């Protein structure tokens, strides 16, 4: 896979991540159901997390875990993928989970108050 013909595959993961984000954005902006909006928002988060992990990866890298092998072959340290984005993604996943939970709690409140999940019928405030 070293030839230029398949070189674009190295960037495929970036494209996929952006595509996932756009799908999520479509769901959040176009769909009328509150639940689908919340799902769309969490799909955006997933796409972004994929993008962040992809930024930290480079070809042929190993997992950034300290082990006996590193001491014997010090060169392999330079073959580790960047661990910082992975740590950031863990934090971002937790935050995204929290936001989704809050949003779902609000959806339940809205459903009890209005008896519907259609966003067009919930407009006591100006949208």
């Amino acid at each position, binding site marked *: 896979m070293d030839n230029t013909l398949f070189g674009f595959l190295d960037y495929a993961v970036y494209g996929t991540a952006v595509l996932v*984000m756009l799908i999520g954005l479509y769901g*959040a902006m176009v769909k009328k159901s*509150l639940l689908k*909006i919340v799902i769309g*928002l969490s799909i*955006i*988060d997933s796409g*972004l997390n994929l*993008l*962040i992990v992809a*930024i930290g990866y480079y070809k042929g890298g190993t997992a950034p875990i300290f082990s006996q092998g590193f001491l014997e072959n010090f060169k392999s340290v330079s073959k580790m993928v*960047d661990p*910082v*984005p992975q740590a*950031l993604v863990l*934090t*971002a996943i937790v*935050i995204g989970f*929290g*936001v989704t939970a*809050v*949003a779902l709690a*609000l*959806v339940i*409140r*809205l459903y009890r*108050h209005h008896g519907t999940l259609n966003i067009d019928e*919930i407009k*006591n*405030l*100006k*949208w």
Partner: protein
Amino acid sequence: MVGTPVLFIAIPLLAAFLIPLLGMIWKELVRIVPGLVLTYLLILSVNLLNHVLAHGPIVEVIAGWVPPIGINLVFSAFSGFLVVLMEFLGLLVWAYSYRFKRNVDYEPALKYFLMLMMLITGSVGIVLTGDIFNMFVFIEITSISAYGLTAFYKGRNSAEASFKYVMMGSIASTFLLLAIMIIYSQLGTLNMADIANRIHTMKPAYKIVSYIFFVTALGIEAEIFPLNGWAPDAYAEAPGPVGAAFAGIVVKAAVYAIIRYTYTIFDLSGTLNFLIIIGMVTLIIAETAAIRQEKLKRMLAYSSIGQMGLVLVAFGFGTKEGVFAALFLMLNHAIIKSLLFFSGSYLVYNSTEKRIVEVNGMSKYLPITSLLFALGAFAIVGLPPFAGFWSKLSVMTAAADSNMILIMALVLIVSVVELVYYLRVVNRIYFFKKEASIEPHRPTINAMVVMLVLGAIILVIGFYPDAVTGILHKASASLMDKSYYIHHVLSLKQ
């Protein structure tokens, strides 16, 4: 040394999660503990600010990892000034809402004070942190507690307002993370000083894209037009003191973040003019929208958005006078808008719709509250001898120094619009007959004390502005001195 900046985050976070446990011992502790914590943090912040003004900024290294590897907190004159302001307002919001509804039972009070503590902690963290990803985490802490506080009342349309806020806030956090990752992928660091030191090695296209994402994301929190769709609803549906907390604490933190990115981190030319333009557009649109509002709190919310636009304009001048004027405006806006929210929510306490017409004739029944509302209204418009006059005057002189005559004219015209809609409310309070159906509600003693303290501060700053200008000058000098910030953070040894 009396304490370190990390206490501003550690103590309230610990206290917030201990509140439910303490509440099991004695229910009143749920209300008392936040007040004690906020009082301690206020004293600590004043002490630290005094220390910083005399000896230069404090940089706190977390867990022994020196910058640029670890997270650090920077307590400079600029961030310290904002921390003092936020802790002070937090304490006032706590005191005001200590028993703001006599029948608030144990569980709502628990959630209210817990989320209020988290809100203040997150905002103070945004101001103190020296690491962009850490700032993202604090922005999320602030936003999630703000969502919760917006949806606090079950009877109103608060869930709808809060859902709107969640949608915009969630997209904001995505943009913010994207901007952070663009910087990280290019420079391989998350430390603000290190980024600022090496940003000139980044390609301009990446810089511009990441700056745009930053401003969009933070603009949603800072209520910049056209990203402020959530703000009027959230202010109108949240409890009154929470509106004051949003205007005084959350928005200030978001504006701080925008300013930190513009002044310290990015070296793009032309961003200052960009700030002036978005600030002017926000100011004009918000003030014209405020004039046609029928609900009191929505009007105050639009006025708050407009003031934030004016702050951005003042920062956009890029001169020392401009930064001074902007900080003065932030201080005055925090104090005066809190007073307006505090007194305004008692003027419309028993009406369900919270419309402006329902304040008619309240001056006979709530004389002191009405007087304080009028004082706040005159002060925020900028009538002498109140506090707002000096901040507007300093914006004018800063604009004149930068030869921005058109901006001066526009700001003055907008001030007239502001005067019109505030005088309309004051006129109704004093010269209209009260509608019989609405029962006035007397403020509690602690709410009255808080409002009187705020009114006194407005008068003190109005008659004796030198009381604060010294600190403001030092704070603006500390923001303008970018190379000192970078050098001070990066030269730390373990």
